[in-house]
């Protein structure tokens, strides 16, 4: 291994210096030192970032901060990450931990891919996967700079975005035919991009014959058009943005081509696409596509032609919400064995009307996935009895912990205390959980504590008691509630991941959906620096549990759980609510604080039926484009649906 520590500039005096070197190398022409490099092995720092940290444990505050560098030596690019000395944020992290995690000169030929995470909240981070399949712990970019990191790498090695996941960058990957096609589209991998800043619009893609001068002119026109007076040239940050923008243009191009093909083979326009997507015949929807204005739900938005295909169209949807499914009708969905013969029809029925109170106990088990639709009466009875004893077994794992044991089991004590603090403040105004020494409150505690043993890694997290409470209320049975909760957490568990990635990805998708479905509102949020959608955090984390009363929450949940139009209907519900109040939000020029307060205070004032109808319409309108806003693996999608060779379920804790 190359002795890279020689070139490790570890004090700040060298920092500015190396930054200069870094930007200099970015703007230098590609060919300059490639040939001479074999002679003298000069190491050159082409990227340097301070305050890049790893979190070796699950505790956010136990971190090791260090300096990340890209070093060019000879013909190869190396990466190093060296922790700072004597700077442990916590006494529990020893120097040994630090040296364990230190990354010493890894050549990029050993790196298989880089996964980028750019949550709207919290820090950006990257996961470096080696050819061996091993990965370094996530590197958190506390001071930003992930984009530059990738852009710099791209100047020196062949880096291409995975077709499966726009956040995965493959290093030196020439295998995949699709990627080969993409790379033949002249991706800007040469450093010369810096000297010839190209416009970030698509036309530059085909401009190989253009001279540098022309490109420059076009570029400055573009900058002026956008009202930006600042000189963009030679600014590495702009360079990287351009590179990445080009990237995304190519991926978008690929995606659009794909959806174009789908469209062509499935009739015209997005509506038929939405139909196909959900295996529906067009007439099973009660709206019609009109070319003139019968009822225009989007009349107040000037829609840029690019962002919506349906600006000329309008929708008529007259389907009022239906009465909830009752037991008589329910029995028509079951055959003599008790199998649900047409689960699609059932889900559709519940989507439009929900379930009657008394029937929830039975139907929720299916919606949640605890019972499968093709199970029989007999099979279910058997499952229930097995699950009951399984539950008791798991419960016993903590029940049997003695006082003496607990004394030496801090994690258990802390978990138990946290749960106990939360169950006593969960839905106490509902008669079911009312009063001192309420046995249902104890039951909540037992289930949550048992769950935290069933899924010890995830443990207990605030918000879980909100999700469990209606389930216990409906099931009125401890083991059954537990297993239904387990099924729910299969989908919503990522909401409670330590890195908050589950929520981040949903808020990200939400921002994309608003951009698609209400561009002016998106622009407004952008202008007010509200694009992190943090004000929707509570909505997403616990599925609107705090926004509606208990009864309405249960109605909403059963509709969401049908996954009928989309697995992510809840995101369209978010858009629907935001759209409902858009004129107030924009009219009163709400800033981030005011908006957060406003949204928090909407609790209890949202009309559920109207919102659901809006959400349905928005979801249908968005069609394929809407789906494309939602990255694969975004909760509540089940993680195992992913087919890519890369694990996209964001369980970075495992990595």
């Amino acid at each position: 291994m190359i002795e890279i520590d020689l070139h490790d500039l570890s004090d700040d005096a060298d920092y500015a210096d190396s930054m200069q070197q870094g930007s200099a190398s970015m703007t230098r022409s590609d060919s300059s030192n490639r040939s001479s490099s074999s002679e003298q092995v000069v190491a050159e720092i082409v990227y340097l970032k301070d305050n890049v940290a790893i979190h070796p444990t699950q505790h956010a505050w136990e971190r090791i901060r260090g300096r990340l560098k890209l070093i060019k030596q000879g013909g190869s690019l190396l990466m190093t990450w060296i922790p700072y000395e004597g700077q442990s944020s916590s006494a529990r992290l020893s120097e040994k931990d630090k040296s364990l995690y230190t990354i010493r000169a890894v050549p990029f030929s050993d790196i298989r891919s880089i996964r980028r995470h750019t949550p709207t909240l919290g820090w950006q981070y990257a996961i470096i996967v080696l050819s061996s399949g091993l990965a370094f712990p996530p590197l958190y970019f506390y001071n930003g700079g992930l984009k530059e990191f990738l852009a710099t790498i791209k100047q020196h090695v062949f880096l291409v975005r995975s077709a499966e996941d726009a956040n995965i960058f493959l290093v030196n990957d020439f295998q995949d035919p699709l990627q080969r096609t993409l790379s033949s589209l002249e991706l800007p991998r040469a450093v010369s991009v810096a000297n010839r800043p190209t416009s970030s619009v698509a036309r530059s893609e085909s401009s190989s014959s253009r001279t540098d001068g022309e490109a420059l002119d076009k570029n400055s026109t573009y900058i002026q058009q956008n009202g930006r007076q600042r000189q963009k040239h030679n600014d590495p940050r702009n360079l990287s943005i351009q590179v990445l923008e080009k990237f995304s243009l190519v991926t978008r191009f690929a995606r659009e081509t794909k959806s174009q093909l789908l469209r062509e083979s499935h009739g015209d326009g997005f509506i038929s696409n939405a139909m196909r997507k959900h295996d529906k015949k067009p007439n099973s929807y009660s709206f019609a596509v009109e070319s003139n204005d019968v009822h225009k739900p989007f009349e107040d938005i000037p829609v840029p032609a690019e962002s919506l295909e349906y600006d000329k169209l309008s929708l008529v949807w007259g389907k009022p919400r239906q009465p909830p499914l009752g037991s008589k009708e329910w029995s028509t969905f079951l055959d003599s064995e008790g199998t649900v013969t047409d689960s699609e029809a059932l889900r559709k029925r519940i989507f439009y009307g929900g379930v009657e109170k008394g029937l929830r106990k039975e139907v929720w088990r299916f919606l949640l996935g605890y019972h499968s639709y093709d199970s029989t009466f007999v099979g279910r009875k058997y499952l229930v009895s097995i699950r009951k004893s399984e539950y008791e077994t798991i419960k016993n794992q903590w029940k049997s912990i003695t006082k003496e044991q607990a004394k030496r089991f801090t994690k258990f004590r802390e978990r138990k205390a946290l749960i106990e603090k939360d169950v006593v403040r969960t839905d106490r105004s509902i008669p079911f959980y009312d009063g001192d020494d309420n046995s249902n409150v104890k039951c909540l505690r037992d289930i949550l504590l048992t769950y935290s043993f069933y899924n010890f890694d995830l443990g207990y997290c605030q918000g879980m008691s909100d999700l469990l409470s209606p389930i216990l209320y409906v099931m009125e049975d401890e083991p059954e509630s537990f297993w239904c909760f387990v099924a729910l957490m299969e989908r919503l568990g990522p909401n409670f991941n330590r890195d908050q990635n589950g929520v981040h990805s949903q808020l990200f998708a939400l921002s994309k959906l608003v951009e698609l479905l209400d561009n002016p509102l998106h622009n407004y949020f952008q202008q007010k620096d509200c694009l992190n959608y943090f004000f929707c955090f509570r909505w997403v984390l616990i599925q609107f549990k705090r926004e509606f009363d208990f009864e309405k929450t249960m109605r909403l949940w059963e509709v969401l759980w049908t996954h009928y139009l989309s697995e992510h209907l809840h995101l369209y519900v978010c858009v629907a609510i935001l759209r409902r109040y858009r004129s107030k939000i924009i009219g009163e020029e709400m800033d981030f604080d005011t908006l957060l307060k406003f949204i928090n205070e909407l609790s209890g004032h949202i009309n559920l039926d109207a919102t659901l109808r809006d959400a349905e319409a928005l979801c249908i309108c968005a069609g394929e484009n809407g789906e494309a806003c939602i990255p694969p693996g975004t909760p509540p999608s089940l993680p195992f649906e992913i087919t890519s060779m890369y694990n996209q379920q964001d369980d970075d804790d495992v990595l």
Partner: protein
Amino acid sequence: MPSRRRTLLKVIILGDSGVGKTSLMNQYVNKKFSNQYKATIGADFLTKEVQFEDRLFTLQIWDTAGQERFQSLGVAFYRGADCCVLVYDVNSMKSFENLNNWREEFLIQASPSDPENFPFVVLGNKVDIDGGNSRVVSEKKARAWCASKGNIPYFETSAKEGTNVEEAFQCIAKNALKSGEEEEIYLPDTIDVGASSQQRTGGCEC
């Protein structure tokens, strides 16, 4: 309008889950205590008008989820804070021991311009419980910690009975005001997170 006076004071309340952050805030602003506040999800704030000498200020008090797991969200709203209130439960050693983590986490995420002198106030809450018999953190111990961190003002409170709550928040407001004025320059009410993080890109605080 650089002459415009700063009238909004932003205060962040931090501390372990269940120590009484939400209760303290509500006791101060609404003069109410309820056993039924729900666990805070995400963040929320309450505002209260306070008067100092002849000037009127709006105290904006931010309450957050206390579980460690939600800490990374802090970055979204700690910025621009004028004072940070650290709360622990005098009946829980762990909640006291975590004060240091909360303090450090706050300084990292809020990145105030002068971290050395950023005003904190520490509250030891729930002193009413069991007439103080179940208390495990002594006042002496708490005060010693506060002294070691640059003489942080310390109060013992009960959100339930309202003990010392008014006094504590007056001190909090005063400190917030001081930190705002020391900065001299007018700061907008909302802090442009995007821009400030870009400026910081090249910097190194180590």
